[in-house]
């Protein structure tokens, strides 16, 4: 009951004219970003963060905008999967398997509508889960001391790279590079300048927002330039939007199963939306593929991964808000924004700023309804805008990134830092080093060091304090188990000679 009254007060926050218009704008922009091949949730959210700063939005409004964009990209990603056979973003890869064949059979309208409904079901189940479980997790996390937080951060770094066959050395190295960058600037406790080379621009440290726009948006342009850009095959035409209701109803269990699996994948650290949709699809295939119709346009093969990736993206907000540890790349980027606005996510957030948490939850319920309308009756807008070619899209993306970063502080130095991080990001991506752990290290580094030093002050320099509580021991054991699992998976997939990355 307490949850309901908190939620009601959340709706009063979410229903202010400013927050409502941000919500609608975010849903629209998000669906568009998701639908455009080449722009995924991480890049989309990263580009928009500097703009929320430039406009001076408060933390609640910024978070509402970015979460609406995040949810929107998850809805939008399916559109190009179904019509072009090109996933609009990484989590939508699985939707191509049955979505495109359905469209080829002339059922494009059904495929789009049922995946829209599946997205709605998945995301709504996730938001209900968020309303119920996030406060519980936050209540448990209040018992964490400084040493336990240090252990939690170690676990976050070890797990954020995901389990899916990437070399775990590279994931950890990426996190360490992020931590190295985080120590640049004045030491927060003693005031000693570290690694500044006397350059006063970086006494305050590297601004994470500037770095991550470079890492994600600018490096994406460099990635695009290394391929020969060719014209895409024409999209399958869509006439009308009225789907056949019986097709949608026939997939209801696939949607529910996909949502639950995706939600669990989203809450777990390091899994995220891509793994959510992969797991939902493969489990649905095992459960329902009796006649071998999966892969040839089976509606259940469209419903399950779409419900899964949307549920996972909602689930990923839970550890981010209640522990301050993001479960996916996009939530890591959102964490960057909150930290830059001096909002420290974690258990105390639920006590100190209930308006922010419950305002966000309330607007996510409304975002889902908005997105359902945008993505079924108004789908025509996006199928037209999707035709914008890459050569025209990316320069505009670059210009918007520059506007955002430049208007934070009108500093040319920031723009140079952004470009430099674009090049660094490109080189690391070429080395198959995921950028998400780096961002996490850059963000959490300061806090991690403070917690370590606080713990050591309490113990007067005795390192055994790090292993004195059951919470931290449990966390270290989980971390080791996870690392052992990912090393094992990496060796196995090395044998198969195949590796795939899951970041979003």
């Amino acid at each position, binding site marked *: 009951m307490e949850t309901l009254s908190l939620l009601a007060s959340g709706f009063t926050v979410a229903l202010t004219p400013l927050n409502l218009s941000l919500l609608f704008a975010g849903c629209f922009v998000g669906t568009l970003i998701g639908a455009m091949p080449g722009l995924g949730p991480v890049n989309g959210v990263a580009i928009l963060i500097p703009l929320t700063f430039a406009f001076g939005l408060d933390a609640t409004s910024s978070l509402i905008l970015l979460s609406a964009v995040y949810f929107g990209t998850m809805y939008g990603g399916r559109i190009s999967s179904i019509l072009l056979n090109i996933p609009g973003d990484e989590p939508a890869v699985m939707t191509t398997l049955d979505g495109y064949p359905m469209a080829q059979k002339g059922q494009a309208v059904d495929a789009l509508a049922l995946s829209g409904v599946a997205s709605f079901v998945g995301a709504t189940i996730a938001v209900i889960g968020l309303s119920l479980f996030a406060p519980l997790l936050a209540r448990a996390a209040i018992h964490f001391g400084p040493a336990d937080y240090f252990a939690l951060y170690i676990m976050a770094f070890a797990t954020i790279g995901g389990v899916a066959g990437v070399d775990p050395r590279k994931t950890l*190295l990426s996190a360490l590079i992020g931590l190295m960058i985080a120590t640049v600037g004045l030491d927060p406790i003693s005031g000693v300048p570290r690694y500044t080379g006397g350059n006063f621009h970086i006494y305050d440290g590297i601004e994470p927002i500037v770095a991550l726009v470079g890492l994600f948006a600018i490096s994406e342009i460099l990635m695009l330039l290394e391929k020969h850009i060719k014209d895409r095959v024409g999209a399958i035409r869509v006439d009308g939007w009225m789907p056949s209701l019986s097709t949608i109803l026939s997939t209801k269990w696939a949607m529910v199963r996909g949502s639950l699996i995706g939600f669990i994948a989203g809450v777990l650290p390091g899994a995220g939306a891509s793994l959510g949709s992969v797991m939902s699809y493969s489990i649905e295939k095992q459960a329902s593929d009796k006649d071998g119709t999966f892969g040839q346009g089976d509606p259940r093969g469209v419903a399950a991964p779409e419900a899964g990736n949307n549920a996972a993206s909602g689930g990923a907000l839970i550890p981010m808000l209640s522990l301050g540890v993001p479960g996916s790349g996009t939530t890591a980027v959102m964490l960057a924004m909150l930290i830059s606005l001096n909002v420290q996510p974690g258990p105390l957030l639920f006590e100190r700023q209930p308006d922010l948490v419950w305002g966000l939850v309330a607007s996510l319920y409304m975002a889902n309804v908005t997105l359902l309308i945008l993505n079924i009756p108004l789908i025509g807008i996006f199928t037209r805008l999707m035709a914008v070619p890459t050569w025209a899209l990316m320069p505009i993306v670059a210009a918007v990134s520059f506007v955002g970063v430049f208007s934070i502080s009108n500093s040319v130095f920031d723009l140079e830092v952004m470009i430099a991080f674009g090049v660094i990001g490109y080189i690391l991506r070429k080395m198959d080093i995921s950028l998400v752990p780096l961002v996490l290290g850059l963000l959490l580094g300061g806090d991690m060091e403070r917690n370590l030093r606080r713990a050591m002050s309490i113990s007067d320099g005795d390192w055994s304090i790090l292993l004195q509580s059951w919470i931290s021991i449990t966390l270290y054991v989980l971390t080791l188990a996870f690392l052992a699992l990912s090393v094992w998976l990496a060796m196995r997939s090395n044998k198969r000679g195949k590796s795939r990355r899951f970041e979003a």
Partner: protein
Amino acid sequence: MTSTRLLAAVIFVIAAVYTWYGSTYSVAFGDVLGPSVFPVIVGIPAMLLSGSLVVFPGGGIDWPDRSHLFRQAAAIAVLLGYAWLLTPLGFPIATFGLIAALGAVLGGDPLKSVVLGVVMSLALWVMFDQILGLPLAFLGSIFGG
């Protein structure tokens, strides 16, 4: 393989220099751990991991061919040029240059890229400066703007 080794070696050297510098920071009193321990805790594993990538690279890199490398270099030059010319030229002119040049580098038809640059630089200026209220200079410092 070789380029992974080379880049890992570069990271190793950076981590080593980082650790060495980090170990020199000190304060006289008041702080049990001091500013140097955390950089050392971070730097040494970074040296170990990058060192292990030098020895066992675990996969090579497919670099783009020469013409694509040239395009990438051109794109970086355009971006840097924009960063340096934004204040002198003002938003619409600099942004026109950015969009038109990047459009062409990305393989768009040159004429279409120029048209896109004209339209979008003005549209973005109107949207951000006029509608959304984000101040962006119309004319740059060399025009006395």
